[in-house]
């Protein structure tokens, strides 16, 4: 699956799609693939604050429960509640319908520290190499 060129990526395998001070956040195709079938997601309430580098929710697959880390700080303006009944959207469309939350960024400058698609693809390639070494 292609990694959208306009998204930014974290080492913890979250993506963020920034439009001005609004941002959508999800987990990457690589992350959903590593997790396996997602069976449950736990998302923050609208109005709550997330802080860069801290966990804001969990994704539970048949194998594990994994924390999701905030790629940037901000206030949650929308949570993708359809995932409660259809968490598999994270597997089928991780970069689109499987988005997790939308936030109003507190400090859009934080985004500049994240990887672009090319850097992220190089990063996961090195990760896979490490894992198979």
């Amino acid at each position, binding site marked *: 699956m292609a990694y959208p060129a306009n998204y930014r990526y974290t080492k913890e395998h979250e993506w963020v799609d920034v439009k001005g001070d609004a941002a959508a956040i999800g987990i990457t195709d690589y992350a959903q693939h590593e997790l396996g079938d997602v069976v*449950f997601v736990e998302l923050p309430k609208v109005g709550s604050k997330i802080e860069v580098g801290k966990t804001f929710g969990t994704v539970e*697959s048949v194998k594990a429960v994994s924390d999701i880390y905030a790629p940037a700080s901000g206030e949650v303006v929308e949570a993708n509640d359809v995932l409660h009944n259809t968490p598999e959207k994270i597997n089928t469309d991780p970069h689109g319908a499987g988005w997790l939350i939308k936030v109003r960024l507190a400090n859009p400058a934080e985004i500049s520290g994240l990887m672009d698609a090319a850097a992220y693809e190089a990063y996961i390639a090195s990760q896979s190499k490490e894992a198979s070494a």
Partner: protein
Amino acid sequence: MRYLPKSPAERQDMLAAIGAKSIEELFSSIPERYRLREALDLPGPLSETEVIEFFKARGAENSGGYTSFLGAGVYNHLRSVVTDAIIQRGEFLTSYTPYQAEITQGTLQAIFEFQTLMCQLTGQEVANASMYDGSTATTEAVLMAERLTGRSRILVARSVHPEYRDVLKTYAKNSGLHVEEIGYGANGTLDQKALPAALKDDVAAVVVQSPNFFGVIESLAPLADAAHASGALLVTTITEGVSLGLVRPPAEADIVAMEAQSFGLAPSYGGPFAGVVASRDKFVRQMPGRLAGQTTDSEGHRGFVLTLATREQHIRREKATSNICTNQALCALAATVHLTLLGKEGLREMAHQNLSKAQFALAELEKIAGVRRAFEAPFFNEFTIELPRSVKIVNAYLLREKIIGPFVLGTSYPELTKHALVCVTETTTRAEIERFAAALRRALEQPL
């Protein structure tokens, strides 16, 4: 699956396989200052004869020939030898944690049956495979409410078992929970007038016990409504499970914590018992401890597995829903066997006898000059009376007549100076109740 310790040769083989020379080398990454170098302060080994002598001596400490009117969280109920015979089977007695479903179907099925029985009794949709006891189950229920609401203030009724509240406060001390107590009203139930002022929008849970520590039955529906109106959850604790044979199950509660001791577990020295946490299905992912689930295998046969284990300590480490990773499987099995033997009708009959005998006992005691029922709310098999004299002095007298007297409420409630909590179960005979009443009358007539 049986649990067998490893022989020295097997330990050596395992060390060789991972390339370690000794157990000491395995632990070498632990900083020296955290290593315990002196021997544990434990008594030395005993021979078989000495072990038998030890347990004979402990057995002789049992209160044979005494009649007990002491309850307060631990209840003397009939137990069948069938329960002991089944739990002493090696497959159950020495079995280890059933992680491997393919070799532990019997243990998993027994746990699944336990969970089913606990759901039926409590009117809840899902129950876990048991906790240590009622007190830790209550605290785990509170922590669950904290996770579910994202709030940290807890309102706990003072009529919740004092030791349960102590356990809760111990957990709260270093975990950011703020525990506040709500008093009781003149009829012995939670003071509903004090609740609205305390129920602010930072309250995670209202914790109430029913029948409560004074023996009286709380009215849960209005408490649930009040809690829900402010976004809090209602946690209900049950110390006397037999009450559920008659009393309406706490279906209004969001989380139920229960002590299962009354179901086939001897009072012993105060344990081991088994705790229960039951809740609504939608809260299952925040439920502590383990759950057995029923499933279908690849050939279409019914089978059992540990389910939702992804949130347990052995997988999620410090982020687990609870740091209790071991349940009380054998005690839970005893409860399962006991309840299965009793059946629905048997449990109802047992509960009826408790209620009837407790009512009879109260009527007999109220005939004694100066003895007064303290709380007017309905009760099950325990009730509070006020005496014209110190309960401790009365109990010392009763003990000489081979009667273990009622619980001295003043030890936990300084304001209840002359109050006694009397427990009467199906094991107490009419003659014993009459003997108790007569002995109490004499105790009160004794010159000071």
